[in-house]
């Protein structure tokens, strides 16, 4: 781990202990409030990857991933917000409005996007229509639907950064990342910026941050769940022994922690790794998040099934992470192509 990412980890831990730990349940129930958003902005987390001249912190990527991991271990929703803002939103805002980036970095303006459309590079399933200087349509299942700025595809190759005319028409309680909220957004706006050929311009940059960013959140989710369950099995007694004394429990948790450390090592050295390794880590770490969070609920017994114990959110979020922020089928095709050198695994 680099010295800077070590420092960041310490700073984020301190921030989370003070601002997130005791409000994690509230975030799940009511969303990330303006106070938390502004605290994230003031501390430089919201614009962590933005250039300092755009109001950002300009930290290196390794430190950013370390930061995401720590946030995810307390609140995966907050980590997801930071990843979306710094990767997809940041890349598009750079082309659309540098002034607004500063407000986004400070937490004064909220920005969101359809993560799946940009993180998978597949043809977007949902898109808005543009004609005669207006952009219109309804987008379903938008994270942070109450945002001020929305980034959405208008065709396979062009995307729009929309600054006004956004209205949430229906809110839903999703499986995952409840802190972001979720809903349908109606768009009718003449205040927007079109980015043509976005795939060529921004896709590589987005994916180079998204792939390890998703891994960082996956490992943070696992870390959070394993921290909770390790504490629980130590204090919880059954049949006159601590749960940790039973071999299936201690072996499973120990093995998970060992796997966790190995993947964390990869994440900490991501800067020196190529895209293929980043993709491999993403596929492994997201699967690992599902395995480790499931074990964490199981060893909590009935208590793990209730939100008060703070474990079930990790389980729910591990599934959303594999779908909202990535496309497993597409990523498997990407990896096959890198391994075999040509298109493969499509039959």
């Amino acid at each position, binding site marked *: 781990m680099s010295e800077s990412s070590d420092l960041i980890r310490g700073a984020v831990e301190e921030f989370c202990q003070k601002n997130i730990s005791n409000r994690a349940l509230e975030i799940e129930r009511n969303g990330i409030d303006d106070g938390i958003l502004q605290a994230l902005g003031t501390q430089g987390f919201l614009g962590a990857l933005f250039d300092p001249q755009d109001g950002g912190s300009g930290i290196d990527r390794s430190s950013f991933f370390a930061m995401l991991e720590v946030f995810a271990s307390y609140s995966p929703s907050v980590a997801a917000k930071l990843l979306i803002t710094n990767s997809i939103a940041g890349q598009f805002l750079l082309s659309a409005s540098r002034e607004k980036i500063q407000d986004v970095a400070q937490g004064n303006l909220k920005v969101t996007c359809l993560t*799946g459309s940009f993180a998978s590079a597949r043809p977007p*399933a949902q898109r808005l229509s543009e004609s005669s200087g207006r952009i219109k349509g309804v987008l*379903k*299942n938008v994270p942070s639907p109450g945002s001020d700025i929305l980034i959405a595809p208008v065709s396979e190759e062009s995307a729009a950064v929309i600054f006004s005319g956004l209205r949430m028409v229906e809110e*839903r*309680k*999703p*499986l*995952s990342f409840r802190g972001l909220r*979720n809903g349908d957004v109606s768009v009718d706006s003449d205040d927007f910026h079109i980015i043509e050929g976005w795939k060529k311009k921004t896709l590589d940059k987005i994916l180079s941050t998204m792939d390890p960013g998703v891994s960082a959140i996956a490992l943070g989710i696992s870390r959070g769940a394993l921290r909770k369950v390790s504490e629980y099995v130590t204090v*919880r*007694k*059954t*049949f*006159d022994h601590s749960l940790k004394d*039973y071999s*299936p*429990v201690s072996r499973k948790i120990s093995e998970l922690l060992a796997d966790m450390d190995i993947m964390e090592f990869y994440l900490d050295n991501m800067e020196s790794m190529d895209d293929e390794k980043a993709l491999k880590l993403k596929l492994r770490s997201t699967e690992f998040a*599902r395995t480790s969070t*499931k074990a964490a*609920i*199981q060893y909590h*017994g*009935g208590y*793990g*099934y*209730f*939100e*008060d114990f703070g474990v*079930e959110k990790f*389980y*729910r979020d591990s*599934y*959303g992470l*594999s*779908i*909202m922020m990535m*496309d*497993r*089928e597409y990523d*498997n095709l990407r990896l096959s192509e890198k391994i075999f050198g040509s298109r493969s*695994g*499509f*039959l």
Partner: protein
Amino acid sequence: MDFEFSEEINRARDRAREFALSAITPEIARKYDLEEKFPEEVWKKAMASKMVDFSNPWSMLVTIEELCRADPGIGIAATVSLFGSEVLMLFASDQLKEKYLKPVQEGRAIMGLAVTEPGGGSDVAGLKTEAKLKDGKYVINGSKMFITNGQIADFFVMLLRTSRPDSKRHHGLSVLVVEGNLKGFSRNKLTGKLGVRATNTAELILNNVEVPASNLVGEEGKGFYYIMTFFNISRAYVAAQSIGIAQGALDHVLGYLKNLKESGRESEITEDIQFTLSDIATRIEASRLLTYKAASYLFNFQPKQEITSMAKAYASETAVFACEKAMEITGDTGLYGDLERFLRDSKIMEIWEGTSEIEKLVIARTFLKGGQM
């Protein structure tokens, strides 16, 4: 060996499927899940239809499967008002049966089974809530946790400590029928569950609650055996719930793949997806065979505990497996549709009525004691 059910059981399955399709719509399932509320209307309809009848266990088994296939939370809520009734059927006096069992069988009352205590869970014999006999009444002090129907039940079949344990911890436990409106009895609804949110769950607090001695079920000190006998039965029903959940998840996958085909995207149904589909279907079939085998022993009064535990552990893990794989295949459609509720609901199957770990110990210890297949 005949693998076909009788016409009567097939009719029960068809009737339950028909009921589920009309009374448990996705809109209704979403509403009660979101509001975390017991679906009283659906329960009343189910009771009025006479499909919920635990004295006809085979029909009940397939009915549970079909209702949970439509929606696990509602399916369980609609059939759980008699939870614990087998303890009364098998061990209670005729007077207790007449007074308590009849109203629940007729859909006029709801009952609950209260065994688990805070910090208790799997260790049933370690329970601490006491019932002391004084002047012809039992005086109860303590608390119970995670009790299904806890806030809405008219009465509970409750496992309590009536005397200090001797060398064996499970000695000294007895079962009493405790009404929910007694002085000193309070209940707190537990909210914020991951799944099965249409079922009602509560913590029960008992502070000097007085119960007539005539409410003792069977003999004093034999409560542990009665409850373990009940768990052997209820585990078969949990296996049926699990099969229903897995089948429901498979239904979602098949609907999704059908849509892909009809919209000209058949090429996306790769062999990898077909293999996963095949794994889900195979595990469901294996769970059914195991569960029906366990039920067959059970309903012929020759229970084989290890077979029941195999069925419960395997079927519950299959429910979770099917939902997880279904989510992988369906992606966004599953994440933002009704399938996500199945995923949340499925996890409790591996926990309640004996965790998978407990079931595996039951199986292993049977063989270590010389049991054979």
